[in-house]
């Protein structure tokens, strides 16, 4: 087709602006983190006596622990459950119910995290506090986050199931395999890489979630020693302290942002490489 210089340079510009946004975000995170590294060295992040911004102590380990425990806990709950629900929706539910179920999952995946957090705050936290005060705890965070991530897991797993070659399923039917044997021997092994990559991406989402976790976890800076203890995540820490932080405190918050940023980039890369291998 007769193309024009203006067109191709406009389209190029559009693409480069998108790349530029990511580049700028990376640059700002690094640039705002550097002053802290220069003044105190990187090792202060794990050597300082704790997170006491007013005394210049910025140990991020407790919050990193909080983030990881809650994110992995949520995915550990939502992952298997999501796979089961996707199997139910695609192979066991009657057609009308399956489409209702899928619609519901799409709807739930769009509900704002602040609404999940709000529900956790007014229902879940009081309930947990009846048997393990104070209620705002790692457990509450894991439950709320698992509920949030679940619909997304169901939708990605369902898309993965969709890719199973039709002729394998027909062959399985010809061999008179039971439905479950068909799923266990054919569908699941074939979809495993996609499921893994989908769940990896959801782990990234769970790590980056702010509002819901902020509202139900109690926000006390400590490495949680049980499920019922409050904790604070990296994301919640930024949201709570950014509004009044000054000097190195700001830089320290950007460092926690940088850590989150790098973790999510890593997670996306891992997820993408698993998926690419499958089609290679």
């Amino acid at each position, binding site marked *: 087709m*007769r*193309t024009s210089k203006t*067109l191709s340079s406009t*389209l*190029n*510009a*559009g*693409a480069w*602006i*998108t790349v530029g*946004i*990511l580049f*700028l*975000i990376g640059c*700002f*995170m690094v640039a*705002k983190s550097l002053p802290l590294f220069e003044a105190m060295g990187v090792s202060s992040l794990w050597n300082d006596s704790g997170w006491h911004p007013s005394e210049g102590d910025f140990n991020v380990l407790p919050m990193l622990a909080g983030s990881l425990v809650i994110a992995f806990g949520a995915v550990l709950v939502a992952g298997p*459950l999501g796979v*089961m*629900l996707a*199997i139910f929706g695609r192979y*066991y539910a009657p057609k009308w119910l399956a489409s209702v179920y899928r*619609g519901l999952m*799409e709807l739930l995946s*769009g*509900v*704002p*995290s*602040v*609404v999940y*957090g*709000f*529900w956790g*705050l*007014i*229902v879940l936290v009081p309930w947990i506090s009846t048997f393990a005060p104070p209620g705002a705890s790692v457990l509450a965070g894991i439950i709320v986050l698992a*509920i949030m991530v*679940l619909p997304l897991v169901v939708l990605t797993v369902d898309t993965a199931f969709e890719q199973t070659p039709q002729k394998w399923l027909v062959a399985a039917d010809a061999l008179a395999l*039971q*439905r*479950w044997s068909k799923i266990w021997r054919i569908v699941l092994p074939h979809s495993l890489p996609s499921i893994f990559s989908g769940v990896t*991406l959801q782990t*990234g*989402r769970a790590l*980056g979630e*702010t*509002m819901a976790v*902020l*509202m139900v976890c109690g926000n006390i800076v400590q490495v949680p020693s049980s499920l019922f203890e409050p904790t604070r995540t990296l994301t919640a820490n*930024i*949201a709570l302290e*950014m509004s009044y932080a000054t000097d190195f405190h700001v830089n320290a918050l950007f460092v926690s*942002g940088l850590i*989150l*940023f790098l973790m*999510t980039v890593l997670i*996306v*890369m891992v*997820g*993408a490489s698993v998926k690419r291998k499958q089609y290679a």
Partner: protein
Amino acid sequence: MLSAHRLELVMKGVLWLTASVVLIIPVMMAYDLMINGFSTLSLEFLVSEPRNSGRAGGIGPLIISTGLILFVCLSVVIPLGITCALYLSESVEESSASGKRISLVLDILSGVPSIIFGLFGYVFFAQVLGFGFSILSGGLTLACMALPLFVRLTEQSLRHSPSSYRQAAEALNLTHVGFIFKILLPSSATGIAAATIVATGRALAETAVLIFTAGYVTRQPESLLDSGRALSVHIYDLAMNVAGGTKPAAATAIILVMFLILINGLARYLSKRWLPR
């Protein structure tokens, strides 16, 4: 050892049970929101100003702020997103190096936590560019966040456009620009509209981005450079910082979720119309 037939029956039971139990959660959530918020809901609540830090009054100005933030966000996302999607579908091959590179950038960008966008917007738009805590800063930051999703969906719809259109355009010796504006974009309009609606839903649901960019002010905004509080931020603030804010927070949550259900329905309707083609 269970026979295959037994196992089938057991699994059927287990899956039905799991599905029914999980279904209780959204029902419970809807019930709890309704119980707490229904008595506060009224037409008055939708139009009046919040009083006493939001304990009384309504959410009128906040709906306007939210609308303005969305307006800023979409007026950046739509042109920029369509250009980027056109680049992916028209300028490069899907499997080429630059196509893959942009795809990876979009994947990473859509995986970046929203709080990071918030930090970025706070430094870049509010401080470096000097927009301050404003609807403009908030909308632009939100645009960065919603962009990857919009580009992905638009690209999909552009790729679905029949190759016979392209061949016919080649045969008629149309210019590439003419093909894009007269044929490709109009024929993908429904898909692009669906993408816009999905991106709107994502932006409407966002909170963490807006706390440090659009700010907390509950007053009616007079210009795009005024600070304005979005509905989602209002829910957060009432629930966490205002004693006795539960009822109006629940009512606001109901309104926000209603908006989202509406948006979701619209997107489903549009993509149904677009898919069979």
